[in-house]
């Protein structure tokens, strides 16, 4: 009823192979896009600039990581370092007078090259050992940023993003939001489509078993490096967008090890390799602590929780932890799978059984 399938006949291959063959899905996406485009009109600035904007950028970053971890199966626990390289490169390039559009691409390329260098470890090691190798990247990049004042921005280790314009539009005010939205849309469309290309299928083959992939003619050497290259490129630009559209002042702590873990959590809680999962995961990991903190604070103001500030501050952590454990127990495949279950239920509603 909600997802009406009767009467939808695909008479050409193109329509059957669309990203969203069911018309309702397509309409939902259009509505969401329209809502996102109109968000500055109906959302107060607090929610636009402190919730939705970072959510979009982090979703783009989680999508970049899910491309590497979910689609290509290469674990990466240093993705914050990848974003840091992108953020710092873009700022230094923009400061050197490079137009912002080129600075973004330049930052992506620099990040991709460095990310691929470290990704080369994936040619020899897999699984937990690859985690160690990427962790090393995190610590090396952190160390270099902190110890080279020319990169970190002098004694105060703070780099302000210069005033820039993107395609002749100054990047400020609601422009920041649209910049982030544009990047999130680009990455989303990219990742949605990559699964339908030979490149994407090669990555999936590598993920499932790399020597089996080699036997059927997929070159693991090439595709593992390409996976790191692509994901680092996207991650680098996400870092740059995060710096320019959101933080506007970059410090090394913004890309620390804990941020890498948060990114991995976004991908895992959302659902490995899923696009909607990246959005849901980023939303959960990024926004749940904020909502919980505010909820508990309001309860305290209303006198429901007569506790000291420091104890109050820990309640959201406990709830947050419980939620993560709960979600994993309830649906190990992540939030994306929960969404999928709901969608499948309505696909045949009011009947009970789904076919797929």
């Amino acid at each position, binding site marked *: 009823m909600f997802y009406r399938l009767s009467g939808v006949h695909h008479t050409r291959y193109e329509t059957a192979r669309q990203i969203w063959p069911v018309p309702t899905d397509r309409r939902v996406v259009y509505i969401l896009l329209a809502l996102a485009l109109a968000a500055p009109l109906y959302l107060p600035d*607090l*929610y636009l600039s402190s919730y939705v904007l970072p959510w979009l950028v982090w979703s783009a970053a989680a999508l970049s990581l899910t491309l590497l971890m979910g689609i290509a199966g290469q674990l990466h626990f240093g993705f914050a370092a990848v974003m840091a390289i992108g953020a710092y490169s873009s700022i230094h390039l923009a400061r050197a007078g490079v137009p912002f559009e080129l600075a973004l691409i330049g930052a992506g390329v620099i990040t991709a090259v460095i990310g691929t260098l470290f990704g080369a470890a994936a040619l020899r090691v897999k699984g937990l050992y690859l985690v160690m190798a990427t962790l090393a990247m995190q610590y090396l990049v952190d160390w270099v940023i902190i110890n080279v004042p020319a990169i970190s921005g002098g004694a105060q280790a703070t780099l302000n993003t210069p005033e820039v314009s993107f395609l002749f539009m100054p990047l400020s005010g609601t422009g920041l939001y649209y910049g982030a939205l544009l990047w999130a849309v680009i990455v989303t469309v990219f990742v949605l489509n990559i699964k339908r290309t030979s490149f994407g299928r090669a990555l999936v083959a590598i993920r499932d078993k790399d020597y089996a992939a080699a036997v059927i003619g997929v070159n693991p050497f090439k595709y593992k490096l390409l996976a790191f290259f692509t994901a680092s490129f996207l991650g680098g630009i996400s870092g740059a967008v995060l710096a320019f559209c959101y933080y506007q002042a970059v410090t090394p702590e913004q890309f620390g090890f804990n941020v890498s873990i948060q990114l991995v959590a976004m991908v895992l809680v959302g659902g490995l390799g899923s696009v909607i999962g990246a959005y849901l995961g980023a939303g959960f990991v990024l926004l749940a602590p904020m909502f919980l903190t*505010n909820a508990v604070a309001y309860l305290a103001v209303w006198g429901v929780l007569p506790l000291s500030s420091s104890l109050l501050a820990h309640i959201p952590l406990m709830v947050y932890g419980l939620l993560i454990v709960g979600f994993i127990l309830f649906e190990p495949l992540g939030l994306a799978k929960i969404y999928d279950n709901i969608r499948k239920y309505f696909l045949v509603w009011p009947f009970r059984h789904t076919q797929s």
Partner: protein
Amino acid sequence: MRNAIKGLIGAAGVAAIGVSGAAKSDDTFTIGLLQDFTAVYTFVTDEYHHGQMDYIELVNQEGGVEGHTIETIVRDTGNEPQRGIEAYSRARDQGAVLVDFLSTPVSRAMVNRVLDDEIVMITALHGRGDASHGTTFPYVFPMMATYWSQAMVLADYIDREQGGLEGKRIAHVYIDSPFGREPVPVLEELAERKGFEFETFAYPSPGTEQSATWSDVRRFQPDHVLIWGAGGGQPVSVREAIRAGLDPADILSVVWMAETDANTIGVDHATGVKRFEAVATGTDYPIIERIQEEVIDQGLGAGSEDEVGTTYYNIGVATMAVAVEGARLALEEFGGPLTGEKLRDGLRMIEEFDAEGMMPPITITEEDHQGGGFGRVSQWNGEAWEPITDWFAAHQDIVWEEIEKDAAEFREDN
């Protein structure tokens, strides 16, 4: 799906703002204490925040600031800039005129925002040192000695009380972060002027393991060592220094060294260790006595009674005492309601304010938001931190060279 949720959030948000906005009246003002209760700064936040809340309660009990009651917005940021930004934006929308993050990463990320929004941000003992440059950072108030000033006070103490600096070997052992590195340029400059040998030794964050660093320090054979860390790394540094054969009296610490650290090291073991002190410790001060009487004894305290009078508690009290003094001057001069701009001007009118003897007399001007860079040296005597010098400031010319230089860089960037 996601934007449907977003719409709901927005609707809820509009409602929430409507409710809170309507409650605002002329005889109150709001400050945001948006601090790190759960991550990196936990070693100080509890006591510090407790001191702030108790002092605010005291002021409110005594009739407020010129008849204005102080309201607080308290949020945990977990030391994460994105949560800091959210908490700050919310506090700003609810009319906060002053914010305190007590977190260097969050404060640094917030500088441009408070300058744009004209909201006072106090960065006592954290944040950017060059924010002392009042004309460049009109809304940022370090209000206590920056790390540069602290290093100069400690070095000057060695110079005057521990046999001079000339020809000495001074080691700077620090946590490998911008904070640990911060005093290096001023100390290098002083080494050149005074003719002592200066060497730096970094240990990796979080500093629970420092033995490799200290074997290098031992090879250097320093006469004095400055330890520049915070939290769990500090007792480790002291223990390692003593193991390296240093007399505890030759170990001088940055401001982050408190009773808990001495207990961790072992109260007897730590005897003799020195530290920089920005605010007096203990309960023998009129403000603390009044807090005890009018807040704690009435059951209005914000935390455990044991914390009253500890190092970080008193620092918290002092930050709010300075802020309230600024608000008082502002309200006296300009009348209510208090705004960020009025508060800024009020803070800049503070002259020789010492919180009834609890802190060095500070004077904040339009140019100098540091308040003079005063402090003193205190020593652990086995039971408490006992002051061994008067309040003084040292080599402010070197400090201000550094402030000018970094502030000029900041101006260039913006």
